[in-house]
């Protein structure tokens, strides 16, 4: 138990020192050696009935911005806490940088966390908060001061450094919490819904900034959120979780455009899902009637769902012959500026359609409309 621990500690410290040396020489922030993460058969239950994680296998590449996405209670936070060492799995292994750290306590892992509540120490100033990890790790006073100044400049904290913690705004606290975790130059940075307490404007700004920082440092980021827009904007890859099971892993466009099942589709914000009764080589029978699809979408199972993305629908347009065409009626119009959303009734079923606002004539409520969609844009989704 104690043997791998000491190994982890020494390798980590050695690496840190050699890096900071080179940083002083070049006078510029160097790129770290990011770590990959491998999770094997992770299982965790709370009490008798609540399964938080059910046999989770997952690989996160070194230097990746990876997001765990899901509704509350899906297990994403439990997974993150296991990476930090704050939660112990009932079964399975956590490997960081190729090393099994399952039994290594959090204070011996080269992993740092940005907490949802920021968790800044109220009894310390901003400067002492930033230096806390360095001080606990045993860095020299001089080294601590140099790194605090460096990170303060990097995150643009400016004059905040000498203020007491309780005088900071939410956005400022968020930056300090981020800086406090980054300053330790961990192999992996964990972020537990760090933006959820901020208002929309600041949130958007920090999303961009976080992504930029990650790219500049080349560090492995594992980010937890329940907001699919946030996940898509920032991530290299997303894992969608539900009920302690990973539903789908992939780059944002893949998860959005080709959700693997109805849960992922709904969670990514898709409303136009239609039940499939029967299917053939290049067709499916749905509530909307028979529709042609790309033969590549052919599946073994007969049922499932058909996903029709609102932005792929064309309204009253001249289309090639192979397009699916349906007759509908405008029930509601939502004007959004850059686009217009229509709620249509097609074959007695509600369907959403989005049109880019290019100055064309807007449809009115009650108008009859021809809806066309290319077979290639229709996606089959498992139940």
């Amino acid at each position, binding site marked *: 138990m104690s043997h791998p621990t000491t190994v982890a500690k020494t390798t980590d410290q050695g690496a840190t020192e050699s890096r900071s040396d080179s940083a002083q020489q070049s006078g510029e922030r160097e790129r770290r050696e990011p770590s990959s993460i491998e999770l094997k058969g992770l299982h965790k239950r709370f009490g008798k009935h609540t399964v938080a994680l059910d046999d989770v296998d997952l690989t996160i590449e070194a230097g990746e911005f990876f997001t765990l996405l899901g509704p509350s209670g899906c297990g994403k936070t439990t997974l993150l806490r296991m990476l930090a060492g704050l939660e112990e799995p009932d079964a*399975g292994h956590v490997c960081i940088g190729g090393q099994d750290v399952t039994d290594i306590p959090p204070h011996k892992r080269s992993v740092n966390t940005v907490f949802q509540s920021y968790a800044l120490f109220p009894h310390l100033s901003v400067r002492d908060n930033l230096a806390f990890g360095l001080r606990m790790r045993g860095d020299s006073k001089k080294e601590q001061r140099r790194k605090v100044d460096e990170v303060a400049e990097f995150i643009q904290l400016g004059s905040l450094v000498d203020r007491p913690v309780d005088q900071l705004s939410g956005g400022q606290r968020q930056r300090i919490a981020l800086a406090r975790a980054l300053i330790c130059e961990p192999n992996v940075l964990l972020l537990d819904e760090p933006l959820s307490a901020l208002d929309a404007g600041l949130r958007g700004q920090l999303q961009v900034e976080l992504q930029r920082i990650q790219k500049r440092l080349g560090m492995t980021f594992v980010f937890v959120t329940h907001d699919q827009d946030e996940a898509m904007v920032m991530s290299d890859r997303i894992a969608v979780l539900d009920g302690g099971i990973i539903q789908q892993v992939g780059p944002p466009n893949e998860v959005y455009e080709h959700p693997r099942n109805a849960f992922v589709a709904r969670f990514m914000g898709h409303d136009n899902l239609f039940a499939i009764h029967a299917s053939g080589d290049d067709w499916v029978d749905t509530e909307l009637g028979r529709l042609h699809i790309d033969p590549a979408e052919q599946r073994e199972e007969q049922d499932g769902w058909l996903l029709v993305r609102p932005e792929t629908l064309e309204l009253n347009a001249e289309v090639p012959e192979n397009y699916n065409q349906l007759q509908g009626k405008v029930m509601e119009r939502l004007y959004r500026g850059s686009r217009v959303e229509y709620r249509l009734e097609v074959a007695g079923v509600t369907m959403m359609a989005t049109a880019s606002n290019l100055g064309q004539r807007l449809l009115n409520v009650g108008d009859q409309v021809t809806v066309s969609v290319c077979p290639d844009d229709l996606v089959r989704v498992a139940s």
Partner: protein
Amino acid sequence: MVESSRMASRGRAVVGESRHLLFSVAPGATWIVVFLVLPSLYLMAVAFMTNGPYGLPQMPLTLNSFEQLAGFGFLGWSPGNLYTLLRSLWQTFLATVLVVIVAYPIAYYITTCRIKWRAIMLLLVVVPSWTNQVIRTFGWMNLLAPGTPLSDLAQWLGFIPPNMGLYPSNFAVTLGLVYNFLPFMVLPLYAAFEKLDTAQVQAAQDLYASPLRAFWHAVFPQTLPGLLAGTVLVAIPAFGMYVIPELLGGGKGMMLGNLVANQFAGGSNWPLGAAGAILMLIATFIGLFAMRRIGKRLGGGEEVVI
């Protein structure tokens, strides 16, 4: 193989947690068990033992001390102990009522003052209770002694015979109790008044013509939890009071606390004293239990923080 080692480490974690509980909680818990629970249990046992020489308890077990407490002695039944018990109950009741009558307007008045004054006003109410009980009671002895202005006034009004003081007397004990426990009622009542929903009070003033009815329907119910908390804080220690009746009451002002204490201090009869202590404990727990029940029914089941 791997799984079994994981299970073992889980087991270690559980053991670690338990050991942690042991190290942190055990010293304090053990201390209270050894130096309070055991002595209390021993005291209860003493109540069932026989009175030996110097008042020390002896075998065999008997209910003799409870008979003595009820007044049965060598010379047949005497009402002395019963009087003491009734007096304790009466003094507790009287003092609690009087404390409420004084504390209620005081607590209300503090909430009507400006916020920056309130802390100081509360402090002014509490500070006297920080001085030692013996000293405070001694102050009242000085005030009520024969020849003092208060005693002279009482003589002139014909309340007491000439050349006597206002103490020792039951009146002095009541006064001492009210003085002693006033802050314990003001604090919870103040907390209740401070939380008062003023919108409700205004609505009540609109609905009911008389301010008295508005008070009764809108204000009073909201202060009930505070009143209850205060009653617990006053009545329970008042029932077991020792110092005040001992100094201000004299022989005819004795309360249960004195009866119990005298059996130990004078070294005369431990079992009898222990039996009295059991009575006091029963009263304490009945009081606490009753207040909890009433408090829960009122819906204001909040913890009292002293």
